[in-house]
């Protein structure tokens, strides 16, 4: 659940309405790299995350993005207060006004309304975190572009704050990606399983003495898709218990041989 705190994360006090500028800034509300998409992206992705640090950062950044939705909305609201019809017409705000009056509606500057096609929840920790890193940089670029388009300090200050937050979030996601790859249970190749999906699977086992047998078992199991995960996991866990497959010596041998290494870099599905 969430609890509302009745203050903006950063103050917004805009003296001069500017509907033309609002039409541009609205992209950071409901545009392709906007704050609505950011919050939905992180808050959706976090469910499959196998590591608490990553779930934590997605929850907390996703929550902060909701505060940023409110800041951008406050900017839009204040930029479009007390407009005359002449101002609306001459600023080009009329094309927005006709559908939404001065209401705050999540859309891109181009007029395209917000869509979840702007974001992805791929169910794969490496893929999702890379999307998040890109998303933060894309939002940062958009804020850079907004800063090129206005010299009103009342608008620039909160925009500069939001821009700086993108950079901090990027840094935290990079650390989360580092933690994820390190923890992916196979220090030498985190691609071999998807830890968001292959619960309890130990990729070490692919590199052990029973490697071939396991691949055969796996291929057989994968004929029956519904039992894919559980059978695969049971097999690998059992083998691990017998400590045949997780023999460090045999693992190192595999890793020293680059050809074998890349040959085995297949995900188990």
């Amino acid at each position: 659940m969430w609890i509302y705190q009745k203050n903006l994360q950063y103050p917004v006090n805009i003296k001069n309405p500017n509907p033309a500028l609002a039409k541009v800034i609205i992209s950071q509300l409901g545009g392709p790299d906007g704050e609505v998409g950011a919050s939905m992206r992180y808050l959706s992705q976090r469910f499959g995350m196998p590591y608490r640090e990553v779930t934590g950062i997605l929850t907390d950044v996703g929550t902060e993005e909701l505060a940023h939705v409110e800041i951008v909305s406050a900017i839009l609201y204040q930029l479009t207060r007390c407009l005359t019809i002449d101002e609306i017409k001459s600023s080009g705000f009329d094309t927005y006004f006709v559908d939404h009056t001065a209401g705050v509606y999540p859309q891109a500057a181009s007029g395209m309304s917000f869509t979840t096609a702007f974001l992805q929840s791929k169910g794969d920790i490496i893929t999702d975190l890379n999307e998040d890193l890109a998303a933060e940089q894309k939002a940062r670029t958009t804020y850079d572009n907004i800063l090129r388009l206005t010299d009103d300090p009342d608008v620039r200050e909160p925009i500069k704050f939001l821009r700086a937050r993108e950079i901090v979030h990027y840094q935290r996601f990079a650390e989360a990606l580092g933690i994820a790859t390190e923890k992916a249970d196979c220090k030498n190749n985190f691609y071999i399983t998807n830890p968001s999906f292959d619960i309890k699977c130990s990729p070490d086992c692919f590199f052990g003495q029973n490697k071939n047998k396991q691949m055969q078992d796996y291929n057989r199991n994968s004929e029956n898709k519904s039992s894919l995960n559980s059978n695969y996991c049971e097999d690998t866990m059992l083998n691990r218990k017998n400590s045949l497959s997780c023999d460090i010596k045999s693992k190192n041998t595999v890793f020293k041989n680059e050809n074998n290494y890349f040959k085995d870099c297949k995900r188990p599905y």
Partner: protein
Amino acid sequence: MNEKQSRCKLLKEIQIASFAVVETNLYLDTHPFDTDALCALKKYSEMSRKAINEYESLYGPIFAFGNYENNGCYQWVKDPFPWEKED
């Protein structure tokens, strides 16, 4: 300092302390064993809680959860929302 100014000052304190809490919280998510950051988080949480309590006792509720009443009145919908510009 008039009432509006002191209210703004206190609100700014809340924003500063709350921001420090958010920032330290994010840092600790990926550095959970950093004891200095943990100390900072405790300090900023305390600052933020203190500022919110002080604001609420003077001007009404700010932290939504169950805390809507002030002097026997349902205050939550009487106070301005944060994007409203006070002229």
